């Protein structure tokens, strides 16, 4: 069994929860990415399991449907040796506010060590984190943040390009509803990349430039000289009323195809957080182009990043119990 151990003093990560990219420093992000790199190596080896989190309980608490993120977290927890419980709460069956806190209190009484929470409302994960004793990882809250997605995107880019510093990254599509965009804008900015957002004005939130990005309405203009093109899913489920008139018009003007991609650098790489709407925001053939598309790499990096996050957030806990164990074994004479 491969064992990746860090000394108890080497805690490295000074946060109790991971609620967002906002608030992290470049050093902390680099620390998580370095740690993730070591888990990529582990995941590619024959024996993927460690006992780092043996005896720890991780609860996947999902108030919103998810397959890939939940599976990715579940696999991450299991590879680290934790007991992972999945809890899906249909968002329609619960009321907000008090009921969310009730759920948190109920779960808290079961003493989980880590709660991974996804919720359709922005800010709900933070609210919940204030009521529990364990660590909370934001698995996506409304249109606010999705920090592990931004970290896995950063890891994917860093492994291909060596560094994020100075890269020109275009985030395209439904910026308005996207937590992935908000987390990526933060992270890429902190790490020294130049970020552009490209969308029809109806899908760009007001004052987006204040987040340190350049905004474009035209794909060819916005993609010019970009190193990385991140496509976002058109989130029709969050849309009330018409933000764009039709799918065919959206694809024609904002869908990524070979013709529009020509505006970017010749070796520009394509990313997508998934799940993809082929023929809506991305040309199907392009999504499968192994020379240009990092979409499968992103999925692989997701597990490693989530292992790193679970590792980092449980270090204080593990170091305390290690100290307690040492005291008991050694004992006072």
């Amino acid at each position, binding site marked *: 069994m491969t064992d990746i151990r860090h000394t108890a003093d080497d805690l490295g990560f000074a946060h109790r929860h991971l609620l967002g990219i906002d608030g992290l420093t470049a050093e902390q992000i680099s620390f998580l990415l370095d740690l993730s790199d070591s888990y990529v190596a582990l995941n590619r080896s024959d024996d993927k399991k460690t006992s780092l989190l043996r005896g720890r309980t991780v609860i996947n608490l999902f108030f919103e449907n998810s397959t890939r993120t939940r599976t990715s977290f579940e696999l991450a927890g299991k590879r680290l040796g934790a007991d992972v419980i999945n809890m899906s709460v249909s968002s329609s069956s619960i009321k907000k506010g008090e009921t969310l806190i009730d759920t948190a209190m109920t779960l808290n009484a079961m003493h989980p060590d880590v709660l991974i929470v996804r919720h359709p409302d922005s800010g709900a994960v933070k609210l919940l984190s204030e009521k529990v004793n364990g660590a909370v990882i934001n698995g996506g809250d409304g249109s606010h943040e999705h920090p592990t997605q931004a970290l896995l995107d950063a890891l994917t880019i860093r492994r291909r390009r060596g560094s994020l510093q100075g890269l020109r990254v275009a985030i395209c599509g439904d910026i308005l509803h996207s937590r992935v965009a908000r987390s990526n804008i933060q992270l890429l900015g902190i790490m020294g990349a130049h970020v552009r957002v490209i969308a029809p*004005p109806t899908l760009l939130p007001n004052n987006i430039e204040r987040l340190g990005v350049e905004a474009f309405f035209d794909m060819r203009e916005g993609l010019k000289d970009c190193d990385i093109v991140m496509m976002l899913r058109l989130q029709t489920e969050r849309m009330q009323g*018409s933000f764009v008139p039709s799918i065919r018009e959206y694809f024609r003007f904002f869908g990524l195809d070979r013709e529009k991609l020509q505006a970017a650098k010749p070796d520009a790489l394509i990313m997508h957080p998934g799940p993809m709407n082929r023929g809506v925001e991305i040309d199907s053939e392009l999504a499968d182009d192994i020379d240009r598309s990092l979409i499968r790499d992103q999925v692989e990096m997701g597990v490693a990043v989530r292992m790193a996050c679970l590792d980092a957030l449980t270090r204080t806990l593990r170091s305390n119990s290690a100290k307690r164990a040492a005291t008991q074994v050694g004992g006072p004479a």
Partner: protein
Amino acid sequence: MISAGMKPVSTKNPGRVAYVNARLLDPATGLDETGGLLTDGTKIADLGSHLFNDGLPEDAQVVDCAGLCLSPGLIDMRVQLREPGAEHKETIESASRAAAHGGITSMVALPNSEPVIDDVAILEFIARRAREAKLVKVYAYGTVTRGLKGRELTEFGLLTEFGAVGFTDGLTAVSDSQVMRRALSYSRTFNQVIIQHPEDPALAGGAMNEGEVATRLGLTGVPSAAEVIMVERDLRLVALTGGRYHVANVTTAAALDAIRKAKQSGLDVTCDTAPHYFTLNENSVGDYRSFAKVSPPLRGEEDRKAVEDALADGTIDVIASDHSPHDQDSKRLPFAIAEPGIVGLESLLPLSLQLYHNKQLSLLDVLSKLTSGPAGILGLNGGSLKAGAPADLTLFDLNKPWQIDPDSFQSKSKNSPFTDYPVQGMVRRCIVDGRCIYGPENTQQI
């Protein structure tokens, strides 16, 4: 660009035509001088006071203008063609003929046909019918919302690629603020203008202007506030979104004040009015004359004067005919249920020239509202006299007095309140892409 190009296809090259002894008028450059103009094929080749000093080109046909005014072809940015859907009132061909007689070389169709222009197929249909008519240039707007229902936006991008020159719901106001916000916002992607019918629909249910006349006649009124409420709301949305906004048929002092201030503050806002709003007032309704029923309604005298003033100070950028043909059955009805609208293509120029003859505007200022004004707002190629521009020209006799006779109109419908109305100024020739589509057959004759 997939654009089908909404131009009439000339069957043969019109060759070179020399217009001599013309009073050349170009509001785009401020040109007003006697001289000549040479067209070559579909373009203006050259013009100026000394153009033919070295003699006329041998291969050119010669038109002696005898001192008449030669201006860029008029552009009418508000025309209801009634085709498809109501061909008994007007067709693209009859409207084109009426336009040619009115000196109009380009007209823009409102999208409230049946079916409405909310899909590229309808745009293509209109382009094809205009090509078949081979008269004036026909452009079209797309609707802002599908089926004019005020809810879902149409495909601005695809419609733009197929030739739509702007978006409007025609005589229906986009009343939902969120929809209007998104329209103004989304249209920025394609740098298109949103044209609003300025009436709050909840307040605009009445039959005529709200005031003393309506009270005496026992008709329900549309308060002038209905207009300024819609305009002021929209101006806030323009400030919020940075969109391009044009108000059609402005009729009230209050709305004009709001637009004037918005222009001063730098918003991308323009507006038009129609001749009946500065030539007539609510008294024209008189004894329930349904030919004087329009939407927005003819206003009181104060508002009519305010429209004149706003034309003079440049607040109003464009005069459009607001051509709204209706058959007798739609108009010979009790006033309240008669259709609103006036046919205007053939009276647009003479009624507009009243502003010049009454010394309210200079001749070039009047013409700018009929040529360079609309061309600039809609991004049309034309509206000025310069070498290389399309040879779209209007030749008119500035001073010729006559009386409007709707029965002689080329338009299929005759619903005009201007019967026997005395005017000064008559169109003599209409030239589209170098080809004379209205005027005497003999080129030497005027």
